[in-house]
């Protein structure tokens, strides 16, 4: 094998989580970052609204409230010890980002500016609180850029456009990864003491999604294939405001700045579903409300979308009727310029893709598949857990959207993902380096690349009876229809069967491109394989959970059932079939209550 | 607003950049007036060696022509050097071309300057 590399820590993924891990790991160990995209093209760059931290810069706030809001947002499925840790770490980590040079938007006194976001409240008054630290509507972009810049400064080693296809596990420990170099098609083996997965999410399972083409669940699929379970996969967040049909995200920040959702009657329907925080209820609640409005015939022009209105006159009208005031007590009023300044990119998206100017017209929006609450099970240190006893796999770590700590439980609050990335990315990096210092390389088997070769050969020699694109379409549409915002036993079962069928047909996928250099056709096929595995695990986990909780809303079991279902799902792929298991939720301070907004 | 002061050295390239702009502005009266006068007001058909002789006998015109010669030619040759640098990339190649252009510049300038200062020699005609 010619392309052999040895690093103490290998990080798979150059998004926010991967880069944060890289910064910390590289301080203590010889580290390399492998990424299928140039790091700055990772999906973290698409995040708009902000990163949550109870800095209390503009009004009273504290970590306790942030913790409670997150627990409540998670519909009590989040692990409370981890949530508390994350919310405490939030404050120093946001300052750390500032010290790294992140250009946060600023308040008049020069401190980091904060805005409102769904589900974040002042626990006393129950009113939305200014907690999201932001850089206009490109917070993720700035986090990604800043972390990448710091990595350059610290001379982190990057392997850009290297796609990892396999994790090497030797005697129950992780020993490295196998990756294909896109530019040459050559396989490379990276021998490592610690491997950190930070590959992001898998929204491409669904038809309408805010997620990038690259969001194909590689990390979860690769680990599933190595006998590692996936946790809470039935919980996938549908963000209420995706651009109609395209799915491109319109940040919750729009509603944070005072935008409102209107139905076909021009009614601000969220007043009925969440009387206190209205449009700023948590995402599952808003998405579900929209779905119900459509079902009851109040979709715009009879179609399945709602209008999002952020025109200054509308904002001012509702701000007045809500009695919204600025921290200094003056009434909240905006002008078109204020909106433009705070949400420039959103306005640009609407102008480009819809020909709609949000300052003058309403935006057509529908729920869009957005964020994976589930993923590779980890603990607070980023260590990957392989069973219901929380046994750690030595040398394997995961962080970011691919991981399930779980801090988001059944539903993630806006701004908590960016927080999750940096907090747990850092933990994973620190621990991986620490582990590497205290251990030796596990020797690799001679045929380390054989499974990868086998996967590639399957496509190269495939019969070509099936088209990758067709299978992908069928998967996306059935998942959208039946494993989306609202679910039923019957629909989910149908989806599960369909996915099984698609997996069978997937064996007949072939390639036109037999080359090695940038064979993106092969990679698309491989990624579809990942998506199908992820979709299957999602559907199976979902059918089994007979309750409604957070993002998992069932018409046949509309209530949350804490007696039977206050537990995390674990799903294993064994011999072509999905096995389920469960493990308890960590409850420390907050006993489950009913969730009203 | 960043109130920090920064230190930078002014190298040839920076100076050349500034020179192109300042000399360009100066060339507007010089070059335009010259062209306007010779080509439009007087017209090439009125120009002969006597005209030139008379003109170059005037100190004012001599100064004007020397200025024009100096700035227009320096400006133009530096412009040419920049264009050449777009196509010659090695440090060595660029230096050689710069020297070559400098030599051409000196020779042609010298020829022009002699003519302007010494004036016409119609007696030889």
């Amino acid at each position: 094998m010619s392309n052999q590399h040895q690093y103490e820590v290998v990080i798979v993924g150059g998004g926010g989580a991967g880069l944060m891990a890289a910064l910390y790991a590289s301080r203590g160990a010889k580290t390399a970052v492998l990424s299928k995209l140039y790091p700055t093209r990772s999906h973290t760059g698409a995040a708009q609204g902000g990163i949550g931290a109870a800095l209390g810069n503009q009004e009273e706030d504290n970590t306790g409230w942030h913790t409670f809001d997150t627990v409540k947002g998670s519909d009590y499925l989040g692990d409370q010890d981890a949530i508390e840790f994350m919310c405490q770490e939030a404050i120093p980590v946001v300052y750390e980002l500032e010290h790294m040079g992140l250009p946060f938007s600023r308040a008049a006194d020069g401190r980091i500016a904060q805005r409102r976001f769904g589900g974040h409240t002042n626990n006393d008054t129950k009113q939305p609180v200014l907690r999201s630290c932001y850089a206009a509507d490109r917070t993720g972009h700035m986090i990604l850029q800043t972390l990448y810049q710091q990595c350059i400064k610290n001379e982190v080693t990057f392997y850009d456009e290297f796609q990892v296809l396999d994790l090497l596990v030797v005697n129950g420990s992780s020993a490295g990864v196998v990756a294909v170099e896109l530019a040459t098609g050559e396989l490379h083996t990276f021998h490592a003491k610690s491997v950190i997965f930070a590959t992001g999410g898998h929204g491409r399972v669904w038809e309408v999604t805010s997620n990038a083409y690259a969001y194909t669940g590689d990390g979860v699929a690769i680990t599933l294939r190595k006998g590692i379970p996936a946790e809470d996969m039935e919980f996938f967040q549908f963000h209420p405001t995706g651009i109609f049909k395209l799915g491109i995200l319109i940040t919750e920040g729009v509603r944070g700045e005072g935008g409102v959702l209107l139905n076909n009657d021009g009614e601000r329907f969220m007043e009925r579903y969440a009387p206190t925080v209205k449009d700023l209820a948590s995402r599952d609640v808003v998405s579900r409300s929209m779905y119900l409005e459509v079902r009851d015939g109040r979709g715009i022009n009879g179609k399945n979308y709602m209008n999002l209105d952020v025109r200054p006159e509308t904002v001012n009208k509702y701000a007045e009727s809500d009695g919204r005031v600025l921290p200094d007590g003056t009434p909240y009023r905006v002008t078109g310029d204020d909106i433009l300044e705070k949400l420039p990119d959103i306005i640009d998206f609407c102008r480009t893709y819809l020909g709609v100017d949000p300052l003058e017209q309403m935006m057509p929006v529908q729920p869009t598949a957005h964020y994976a609450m589930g993923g590779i099970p980890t603990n607070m240190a980023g260590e990957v857990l392989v069973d219901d006893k929380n046994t750690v796999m030595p040398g394997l770590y995961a962080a970011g959207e691919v991981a399930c700590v779980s801090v988001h439980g059944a539903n993630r609050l806006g701004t908590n993902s960016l927080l999750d990335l940096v907090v747990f990315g850092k933990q994973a990096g620190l621990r991986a380096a620490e582990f590497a210092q205290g251990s030796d390389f596990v020797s690799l088997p001679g045929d380390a690349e054989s499974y990868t070769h086998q996967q590639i050969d399957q496509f190269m020699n495939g019969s070509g009876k099936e088209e990758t694109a067709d299978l992908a379409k069928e998967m996306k549409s059935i998942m959208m229809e039946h494993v989306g915002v609202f679910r039923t036993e019957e629909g989910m079962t149908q989806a599960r069967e369909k996915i099984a069928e698609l997996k069978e047909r997937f064996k007949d996928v072939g390639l036109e491109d037999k080359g090695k250099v940038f064979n993106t056709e092969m990679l698309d096929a491989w990624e579809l394989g990942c998506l199908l595995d992820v979709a299957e695990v999602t559907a199976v986990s979902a059918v089994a959970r007979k309750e409604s909780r957070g993002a998992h809303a069932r018409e046949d079991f509309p209530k949350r059932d804490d007696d039977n279902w206050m537990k995390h799902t674990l799903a294993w792929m064994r011999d072509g079939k999905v096995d389920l298991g469960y493990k308890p939720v960590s409850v420390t301070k907050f006993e489950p209550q009913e969730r009203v907004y | 607003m960043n109130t920090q002061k920064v230190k930078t050295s002014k190298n040839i390239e920076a100076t050349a950049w500034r020179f192109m702009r300042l000399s360009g502005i100066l060339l507007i009266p010089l070059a335009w007036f010259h062209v306007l006068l010779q080509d439009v007001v007087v017209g090439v058909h009125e120009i002969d060696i006597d005209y030139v002789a008379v003109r170059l006998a005037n100190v004012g015109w001599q100064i004007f022509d020397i200025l024009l010669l100096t700035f227009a030619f320096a400006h133009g040759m530096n412009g040419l050097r920049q264009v050449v640098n777009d196509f010659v990339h090695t440090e060595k190649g660029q230096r050689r071309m710069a020297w070559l252009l400098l030599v051409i510049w000196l020779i042609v300038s010298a020829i022009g300057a002699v003519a302007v200062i010494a004036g016409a020699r119609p007696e030889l005609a």
Partner: protein
Amino acid sequence: MTPILTSLRTTLTGYLRYRGREGHYSFLMHRLTGLGTLLFLIIHILDTATVYFFPSLYEHAIALYQSTPFMLGEIGLVFAVIYHGVNGLRISVLDLRLPEKWTIATQRGGVRMTFILSTLMWLPAAGVMMYNMLQHNYGMFGG
């Protein structure tokens, strides 16, 4: 291909085939008019210098200038000098005084204005030169 040829090819492809906006064409014209004027200037310095070095040749030189092709070229040269000057002034002012005005709106408008202004300034001059040429070389207008 040697790197220099590759870059030459890329450059020419770009100059000719890149669909830029006003700025692209403004850049090309500035470069072309600058180089053209320089070429003319060199020739002009040398031919004028004949008044000192080879006065006998001067008459030949000036005769050449008075020929129709040369006069047409001269008319073009006047445009080049005017355009290059106006455009150079625009660039200089923006660079030296108003860097914040390098925006799409001012650029597009500025380039157009430069072109219109140059043409307006050139037309009368071109008219007079044309008149002179027709008069002297073709005996028109009672020449």
